């Protein structure tokens, strides 16, 4: 995976000592994808929100201001590109880091979504450890006791 990490800075660095549970919004039209991510993250102190369209995902992002968004690219009703553009255009969501998770492949796609404002690009099928590493770039993941 070509995910570039160097030039990105976390926009919502948790304040030390402050034990707020981070929220991650997962958007994918396939409910099993978001479910597996939710299951993976069940061993960490994190709230996972799930949504199935870009359009509703955008609304949820505006209302609940998650600390991180993980989204698919190809979805009915508001695809990932549209979502990225909307997120970056809206003041409330412009700073939320976005990880794009796509079945599409290649540097052209990666460059394209980065251009639209994505912070990371991961490819399906993904190794969950890669996803955890990527998430850790943006939010603090504490294992549940």
């Amino acid at each position, binding site marked *: 995976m070509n995910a570039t990490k160097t*030039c990105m800075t976390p*926009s919502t660095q948790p304040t030390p000592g402050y034990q707020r549970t981070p929220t991650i919004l997962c958007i994918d039209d396939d409910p099993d994808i978001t479910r597996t991510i939710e*299951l*993976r993250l069940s*061993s960490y102190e994190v709230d996972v929100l799930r949504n199935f369209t870009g359009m509703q995902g955008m609304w949820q992002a505006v209302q609940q201001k998650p600390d991180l968004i993980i989204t698919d690219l190809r979805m009915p009703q508001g695809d990932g590109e549209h979502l990225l553009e909307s997120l970056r255009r809206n003041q409330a969501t412009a700073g939320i880091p976005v990880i794009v998770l796509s079945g599409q492949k290649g540097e052209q796609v990666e460059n394209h979504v980065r251009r639209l404002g994505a912070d990371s690009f991961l490819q399906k*099928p993904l190794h*969950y450890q890669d996803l955890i590493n990527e998430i850790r770039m943006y939010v603090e993941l504490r294992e549940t006791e």
Partner: protein
Amino acid sequence: MRGNRIRVLLLEDDPLDAELVKRAIHDADMQMELHSVTRVAEATEALASQHFELVLSDLSLPDSDGSETIARLRQAAAEVPIVVLTSVDDRDLDVELLDVGAQDYIPKDRVTGDILGRAIRHAIQRQEQLVETQRLLCEVKDARDLLESKNSKLEKLYNQAHEFVDNVSHEFRTPLTVIKEYASLVCDGLAGEVTEEQTRMLNIVEDRADDLNTMVDDMLDSSKLGSGLLGAWRKPCNVSEILRHVKSTLSRKARVKGVQLLYELDPDLPELYCDAEKVGRVITNLAVNAIKFCGDPGTVRIMVSTTLDNPDVIFKVEDNGPGIDESSLQQIFERFQQLGTTSRGSCKGFGLGLAIAKELVDLNFGRMTVESEVGKGSAFQFSVPKNDPLELMERYLLQVDHETECPPIVSLVVARIDSTASDITDDGIDGFLNYLLRRNDLLLQGADGEWFLALPTDKQEVQKYFQRSQQAWEDANRNRPFGPLPRVDYQWLGSWRIPEDNGLILNEMAKHVIHQEVACV
């Protein structure tokens, strides 16, 4: 000329001049049928209702004058040759007459049988040639239009086919992700306790899902390779980084098959210049094959080595399988060449994977070879160039030279960013410059915010590249949450013909590279 009588329309209002012409025609001893009129209106009427091989016309008529007469006649009969009878006053009109469509002109005071006969014959001949030329031009234009429409149709189909392959592969990956992830979740005990036997089975599920994913990759790559659409994102990278990405898949596969997988790496391997993902795919394809075909107990070795004087790093994947006999080795290499030309049926277990591996090695300016001994095993070996701009440029020039689609011209451009003005690392710009690359372009990373760009085009096309870059740069900055991309300044170093000017190109490169090395010190 036709054997029948030539039908001539004579437009002349002066009866004396008309008589003169009639006599000359008689003298010319030509089989002619003369039809006389005195006004342009009559002439156009006659031309509309009858067929004439030629028009002989005076200029000054009761209802028309000068070149207007000819223009009106032309309009009435586009394909009938016109010979003008000029009087002394019309001498200045010569050129203008020819411009409006007259074939020839004869001064009235010189109308003799000889001259008139010759003028008429020539005019008719010339007109016939003109009509033929126009017909041919029309045919060429029709053929070109047909070709263009067929081309655009093909292009459309071609794009549709690619879109289809892209879509299909995307559709495959989502269920694959779900299968793999659920298997892995259950295997890791996130859904309750699992027995050892269950773990083993779940490992196989994951492994097979990986196989399917590799097949999707192969399908996608082969469709792009066959049509030359597969690009490469080459940049400096190191061996351990490449191996890190393929290890988890390979070790799971080895574990499932009960094969011992060993890595033997030279210490201090130098930096490579390649598309890391593609090199990773080559290793995966070769190792998956090796794991499939190795002996029992099976051992697969992945070895990476180089020497100081070798411009390449050598990757070797070795198995202790039954080996391949000489004729099959030959077959394997033939299959390498078949990629993209004919259908590819399975060749006794050597599927698409090897052929693609070979193409991906070529894409990175490397070479692939195979050694095998029956009963002992096989070793597939490929090279990846070290990060040496001059060596890479040399290999690139050879590749462009072999590429029949490329014009034999290479332009060299330096791209610079002001690295002090921005705290953005080069990665952003590297990605941006790579995004602009087309097939057969080469991007080499220099030191300190400098890149070399080799384009197989002339200076004019380089200008187009700059325009494309400017447009893309503006687009890119519209949506960047982390501030704008630094401005890229381009400097055109020159355009050269290859292969005769290869030396000049390398010299020009060397000047900059050496300059950089000095700057680095």
